[in-house]
């Protein structure tokens, strides 16, 4: 049943691209999430409005549409900019990988800002007040009080998001990035064995999500060490 017609290496290459994509998006997602959460909780009305509309818009639009918009629209935008700078007509291709990173970071960042917002609100107010009373600056409060605890409150949400992220990488195959699903598509097409190849792809994704679940379980345990259960 698992005769991959000598394309096992290709599937593994695809798997590596998927893993690379996930790990590249992760830091962007966290930074955008933190910025979004700070904007939503900001004292300034304009920042709050920007934060809110960003999450509302992104959460209401299918991921696939965002990916297509960035892939096709991004090429045109970069081309226009290049033409403006160089003054002559330019031909630009954005690699599928980086437009995928941009699209996924944009989408997951919106969800992450919800997670971080909730986590920031979960930090006891007394601690912030105590920090202010000690004379800490807002930056100090963020790095010394908020960030270390944010991690613990946000982990369950981030676990969920990372699961979604792993699954969403499959969508990048639509714009031709050679990750697991695209490799399976190529194999299925040339070897006329779609069932085998798509089954392999599904099992690979299942393995990725399972590993991520186990890793996050370990991280959650580690993050809440020293905290007694009520």
């Amino acid at each position: 049943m698992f005769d991959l017609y000598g394309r096992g290496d290709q599937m593994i290459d695809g798997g590596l691209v998927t893993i690379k994509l996930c790990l590249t998006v992760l830091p962007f997602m966290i930074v955008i999430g933190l910025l979004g959460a700070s904007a939503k909780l900001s004292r300034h009305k304009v920042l709050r409005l920007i934060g809110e509309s960003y999450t509302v818009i992104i959460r209401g639009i299918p991921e696939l549409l965002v990916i297509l918009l960035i892939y096709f629209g991004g090429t045109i935008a970069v081309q226009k900019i290049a033409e403006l700078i160089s003054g002559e007509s330019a031909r630009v291709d954005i690699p599928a990988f980086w437009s995928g990173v941009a699209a996924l970071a944009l989408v997951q960042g919106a969800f992450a800002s919800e997670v971080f917002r909730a986590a920031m609100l979960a930090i006891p107010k007394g601690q912030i007040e105590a920090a202010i009373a000690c004379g800490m600056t807002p930056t100090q409060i963020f790095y010394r009080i908020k960030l270390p605890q944010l991690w613990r409150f946000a982990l369950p949400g981030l676990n969920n998001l990372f699961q979604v992220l792993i699954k969403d990488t499959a969508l990048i195959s639509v714009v031709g990035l050679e990750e697991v699903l695209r490799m399976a598509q190529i194999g299925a097409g040339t070897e006329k064995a779609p069932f085998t190849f798509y089954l392999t792809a599904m099992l690979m994704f299942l393995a990725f999500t399972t590993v991520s679940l186990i890793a996050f379980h370990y991280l959650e345990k580690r993050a809440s060490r020293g905290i007694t259960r009520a």
Partner: protein
Amino acid sequence: MFEDLIYVLDKYHGWLIQGLGLTLQLLVISVIFGSLLAIPLAIARTSKKVWVQAVPFSFIYVFRGTPLLAQLFMMYYGVGQLIANIDGIQDSWTWTYLRNPYWYCLLTFVLNTAAYVAEIMRGGINNVPSGEIEAARACGMTPFTTYRRIIFPRMWQIIWPAYTNDVIFTLKATSLASTVTMMELTGAARKIVARTALPYEAFISAGVIYLVIVYVLTFGFKGVEKYLRRNEVRQVNKKQPVKTGIQA
């Protein structure tokens, strides 16, 4: 810029409207049948017997652990080919249905929605206060009556916000049907882009339509939530601030 938008909307609004129709159709059917299928799954999932739990557990695990797009390709190309290989099926009258991507999309979306909703329902059933179930039993209700009159109404109340999110998730999931040549909203937008090479205008028009659907859905589901919680006693805020003579 706006000339292009007007041009796209003027010339191709028919495609977008047809796409909207198909999107809504896929959404409604997937949510209804997915939720119906989720009920037995969720009940089996809350069973204390391991062998009863095992089947829904693995079903939910596989469908939640793999990308929807992979599931869709698996159904349409993988299972589709297995069916096509059956002797004589391509000559029979069923073939017109069996090669139509519509049914494969629906089947995938229904199963996927069922897996996600079952997991939400499991949480809801587990969170029904045990005192209420014990009271129902003490009143002599059969397990079926307990489910019908106590557990389900309570469960819907508990899961409704999460369920709303999941319906929106399913709406966004229907956009994947465009990858197997279905002309729903995203598919229509892609066709317009292929025709006009105006990605911003087409995709943003489709995006705005999705946003409107999400807005309407959220609004409607909020109304239902109010209805579901109509019998709840309103929590009286006991910590009313004590009024003092000194006010800022």
